[in-house]
């Protein structure tokens, strides 16, 4: 135990003091921001310009209806975004405004002419809606901006809305009757627990948030464990260390030390994020309180730590088998697969919380950390299942550490040689 702590301490201090740790601590959040926020910003960008478009229909009435729906929809969008994103400048960029003209010339010649105008950028787009196209429920919108799908989505919704109204109108319904018939109906799921039950949407996001934290941490830092063991092999220091510490102690020390580095970094990020968004957190605290009970946080701690150690041990085992970074990368799918499997199972659990897939997923040690945690958040499973999953994970961690200690010890003493599976099996048997 003493040796494990000495080795873990060294790993931890050397890494936390290193320049790359400091750089990563700043770089990763910047990168995350870049990857997640910037594209959303770009997609939501409204340019504030006015786009000229032409709606081509056989009769002017339908054309007018479409125009009024597009304009009305635009007004709704505008007021809606103003209402719910006060203070959020990213979203409040002015939306694109469509200036709609109506044409009743459905001849091929007009189609060609309009296409040419769009090509020449004299026109931003035209909607081709002759009666046969309307009957087949498929209209062409010719535009240079085929990729700005948010705009095009809004357009599509407006047009279907308009056509629905037009159809009802042609059946002789009055305008207010149409409005009443088209009013959407809201279904509000309610738990038998009444008001104490958590809001399912918030619960979904809270759970998924935690699952993602676990997933990312394992991905980022498990790989570090693998790399650190590889490093050890190339530095050739282990023979000195093995003359006083056992291979198992070395493995455990490395997993703990490198693991603690990961926790430190995530801790720094969480703290910074917490401070930066303190205002928002206070505002949503009331909602979160219903979802994030102390019990859930404790279970998050347990499953996060166990999952993290388990995956680190798996990475350590891979690191002990291979001789180079390239070989390690080839085997990374072994680590990725159960993680991806877990995510698939979780998506399924949200639909069917008490399926047998949920049960087995939460017992199998490599998916248990994510799956069991999700189950606990949704509806607490029986205590024996929780106990069993925790017990199995601890046993698996111990076996993995023992196993990779053995592989490692024999592996390092036979440097240079790339082992195959039968050889690894033999190494495990070697005392």
């Amino acid at each position, binding site marked *: 135990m003493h*040796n494990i702590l000495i080795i873990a301490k060294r790993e931890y201090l050397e890494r936390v003091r290193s320049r790359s740790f400091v750089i990563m601590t700043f770089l990763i959040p910047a990168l995350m921001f870049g990857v997640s926020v910037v594209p959303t910003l770009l997609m939501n960008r409204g340019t504030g310009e006015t786009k000229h478009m032409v709606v081509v229909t056989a009769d002017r009435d339908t054309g007018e209806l479409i125009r009024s729906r597009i304009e009305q929809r635009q007004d709704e969008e505008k007021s809606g975004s103003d209402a719910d994103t006060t203070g959020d400048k990213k979203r409040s960029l002015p939306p694109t405004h469509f200036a709609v003209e109506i044409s009743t010339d459905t001849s091929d010649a007009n189609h060609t002419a309009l296409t040419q105008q769009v090509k020449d950028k004299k026109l931003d787009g035209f909607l081709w809606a002759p009666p046969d196209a309307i009957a087949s429920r498929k209209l062409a919108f010719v535009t240079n901006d085929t990729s700005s799908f948010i705009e095009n989505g809004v357009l599509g919704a407006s047009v279907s809305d308009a056509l629905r109204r037009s159809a009802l109108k042609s059946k002789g319904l009055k305008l207010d009757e149409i409005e009443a018939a088209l009013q959407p109906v809201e279904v509000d799921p309610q738990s038998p627990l009444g008001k104490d039950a958590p809001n399912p949407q918030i619960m979904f996001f809270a759970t998924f948030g935690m699952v993602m934290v676990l997933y990312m941490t394992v991905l980022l830092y498990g790989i570090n464990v693998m790399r650190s063991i590889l490093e050890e092999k190339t530095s*050739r220091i282990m*023979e000195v260390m093995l003359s*006083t510490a056992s291979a198992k102690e070395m493995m455990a020390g490395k997993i703990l030390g490198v693991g603690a580095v990961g926790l430190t970094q995530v801790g720094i990020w969480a703290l910074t994020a917490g401070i930066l968004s303190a205002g928002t957190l206070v505002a949503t605290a009331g909602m979160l309180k219903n979802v994030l009970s102390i019990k859930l946080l404790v279970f998050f701690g347990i499953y996060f730590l166990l999952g993290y150690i388990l995956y680190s041990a798996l990475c350590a085992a891979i690191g002990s088998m291979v001789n180079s970074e390239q070989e390690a990368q080839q085997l990374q799918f072994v680590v990725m697969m159960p993680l991806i499997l877990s995510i698939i199972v979780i998506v399924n659990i949200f639909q069917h919380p008490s399926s047998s897939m949920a049960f087995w997923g939460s017992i199998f040690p490599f998916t248990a950390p994510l799956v069991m945690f999700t189950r606990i958040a949704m509806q607490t499973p029986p205590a024996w299942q929780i106990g069993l999953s925790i017990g199995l994970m601890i046993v698996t961690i111990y076996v993995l550490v023992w196993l990779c200690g053995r592989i490692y*010890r024999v592996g390092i*003493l036979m440097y240079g040689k790339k082992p195959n599976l039968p050889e690894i099996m033999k190494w495990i048997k070697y005392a």
Partner: protein
Amino acid sequence: MQTIELNQVRKSYDKFVAVNDLSFNIPQGAVFGLLGPNGAGKTSTIRMMIGITVPDSGNISLFGKPFERKSLHKVGYLPEERGLYKKMKILDQLIFLGELHGLSSSVARQKALEWTKRLEIDAWLQKKVEELSKGMQQKIQFIAALLHDPDFIIMDEPFFGLDPVNATLLKDVMLDLKKQGKTILFSTHRMDQVEKLCDAICLINKGTAVLQGDLKSIKSGYGKSNVQIEYEGNGDFLNKSPLVSACNNYGNYAEIKLAPGADAQTLLREAAASARINRFELMEPSLEEIFINTVGKTNA
């Protein structure tokens, strides 16, 4: 008391027998040479002595007790494959290794300072290993093996890659340790380097001991059949004489192996007749000769 005892120790990897029923023991305070050509099984033997691997059969006792990991705190090991954490500062590295060997961090620091001063490398304590020359890294490794004041010191190819100045420095340290009553094991295939230091040897080849025992008695068993001559004048007589079976002539110094049954006194008279003799000395065979002789025979 015996510092270490190996009894019929055997280790094989697959079908390859690395160490074949090897037995020897090293009494406390002795300097012992584990000698043999490359691939003879020296390193495999050492790894079993310090518990990196476990023998397939036979047993090892350390400090008079059956092997236990606890005893390793009293063993210092300099492996053949040298290695240190490249990015770590020298002092931190030494403290870390000292702690692993059971020292407290403050004692380890103090010892590291003492040793680096003694080996004239204390100016580099705050440098990273990768900034040091190979020779300096050797010294650090050497210190790492001695930091915790072990009673039993194992050195695998200790002089490998050292320049003469540093080799002498290291040899002095070893002699000093011997004086303090430490037990030392050298493993090497460079006999000339350890010949003057060892009390006893075990010569192994292909995992089997081919010659072992007290160095003096081994040598005397081979008799004095070597002659060193320093002379002035014509050295042609050395090539002609039937008394000489082999000769290394350096101009005015020659090393001679006498023919079987030849009398050294006759050679001296012959030599004096044709050249001026400044020195004429009868020698024991060198360890290297014995080694080549013995290993050559077993290989044949």
